[in-house]
């Protein structure tokens, strides 16, 4: 995006770039922001997810970048002073653009011990107050909205004066740039898979015309070589870090899995094989039986987000913890599809599509077809 040649070019985001929890997500979130900075993002607002690692983490992460964070309706509860800049003004040729952000008042996050309490002000009232102020300083007002779809649409009705709105917070995808209630707006799906782009022509301080489109970031868009190398390096380092942690904690982890195995638990393929030898022999020639090797070949064999679909019962009773701790539970085995071995007599242990799609998601297996997939894993006479 940053390499695009356009004289007055701005890259913005409407929030929610951080992961959920844990060390992996924290490291990944930090890298995500670093990548956004390298890609040339100019202004972003924040979503509730962006507080997942604490206020200070959020502020510190962006402090290292050239990106402006804006949000007009999050204030410190005690002083009512804004948590971030409410808006920024950027010059674009002869025109000036105000970018401001709003968070959905219903969205909640956890205030961590030692953090100051934040308060979310009413979005409509905040916008009504701010729009005249920004209008004095800017020709175009752009809202980076983290209000969701319904509240975002409501805002355009109740707080007139916004020229452009970038919808955020689970708003789905609209493949067109449209104008509703005189607000040019875009809904860019999620996970950065689409890039809505709005082209404005400003004459005499007013938007004279607009057009735009939504770019799908699929295989037709060539990968940026530098960014690709950075992502690979980050992912490889992450995997090495967790592999080392797993090796260090192997003994302790093995004891934990035994302790957790008191109730129903996973048993591993060796137990199934005792009575299902012919099925086992067929299974060993199929892709599921080698699922862990695909992670090893890609140096992702210790990456927490990858493991659950390549091992048995990740972090569940009797299940996989790490390769050094539980080497017998690598690969997709009998219990991934048929359930815990200790529940064996229960009816309904034949896997259906609902089980397959927990791992064969649209992102991981975009062409997944249940009937075709089952034909590849026949292990019964």
């Amino acid at each position: 995006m940053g390499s695009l040649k356009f004289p007055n070019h701005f890259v913005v985001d409407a929030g929610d770039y951080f992961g959920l929890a844990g060390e992996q997500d924290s490291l990944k979130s930090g890298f995500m922001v670093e990548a956004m900075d390298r890609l040339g993002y100019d202004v972003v607002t924040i979503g509730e997810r962006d507080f997942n690692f604490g206020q200070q983490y959020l502020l510190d992460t962006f402090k290292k970048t050239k990106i402006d964070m804006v949000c007009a309706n999050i204030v410190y509860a005690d002083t009512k002073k804004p948590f971030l800049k409410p808006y920024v003004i950027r010059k674009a040729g002869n025109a000036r653009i105000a970018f401001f952000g709003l968070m959905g008042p219903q969205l909640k996050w956890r205030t961590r011990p030692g953090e100051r309490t934040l308060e979310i002000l009413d979005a409509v009232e905040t916008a009504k107050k701010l729009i005249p102020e920004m209008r004095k300083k800017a020709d175009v007002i752009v809202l980076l909205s983290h209000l969701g779809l319904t509240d975002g649409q409501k805002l355009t009705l109740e707080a007139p004066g916004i020229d452009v709105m970038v919808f955020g917070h689970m708003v789905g995808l609209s493949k067109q740039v449209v104008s509703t209630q005189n607000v040019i707006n875009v809904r860019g799906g999620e996970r950065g898979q689409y890039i809505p782009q709005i082209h404005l022509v400003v004459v005499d301080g007013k938007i004279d015309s607009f057009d735009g489109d939504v770019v799908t970031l699929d295989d037709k868009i060539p990968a940026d070589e530098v960014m690709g190398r950075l992502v690979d390096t980050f992912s490889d380092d992450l995997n090495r870090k967790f592999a080392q942690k797993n090796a260090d904690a192997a003994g302790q982890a093995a004891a934990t899995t035994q302790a957790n195995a008191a109730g129903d638990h996973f048993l591993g393929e060796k137990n199934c094989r005792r009575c299902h030898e012919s099925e086992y022999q067929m299974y060993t020639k199929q892709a599921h039986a080698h699922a862990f090797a695909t992670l090893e070949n890609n140096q992702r064999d210790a990456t927490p987000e990858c493991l659950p679909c390549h091992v048995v019962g990740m972090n569940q009773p009797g299940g996989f913890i790490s390769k050094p701790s539980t080497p017998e539970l690598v690969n997709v085995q009998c219990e991934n599809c048929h359930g815990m071995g200790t529940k064996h007599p229960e009816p309904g242990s034949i896997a259906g599509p609902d089980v397959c799609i927990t791992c064969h998601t649209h992102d991981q297996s975009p062409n997944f077809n249940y009937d075709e997939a089952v034909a590849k894993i026949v292990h019964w006479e």
Partner: protein
Amino acid sequence: MGLYRYRYLLFLFVALGLAASLQGKSAPTDILIQSTTDSYGELAPCG
């Protein structure tokens, strides 16, 4: 007295400046805004 002698030149500069300013304001400005949202999780497939 000296300034009076150059009044035509001064007038010319002011007029040119004003014209340039008006011309600049009414000249079309192209702006491109690219956006993303909910970008979490978009990093490196597992393999």
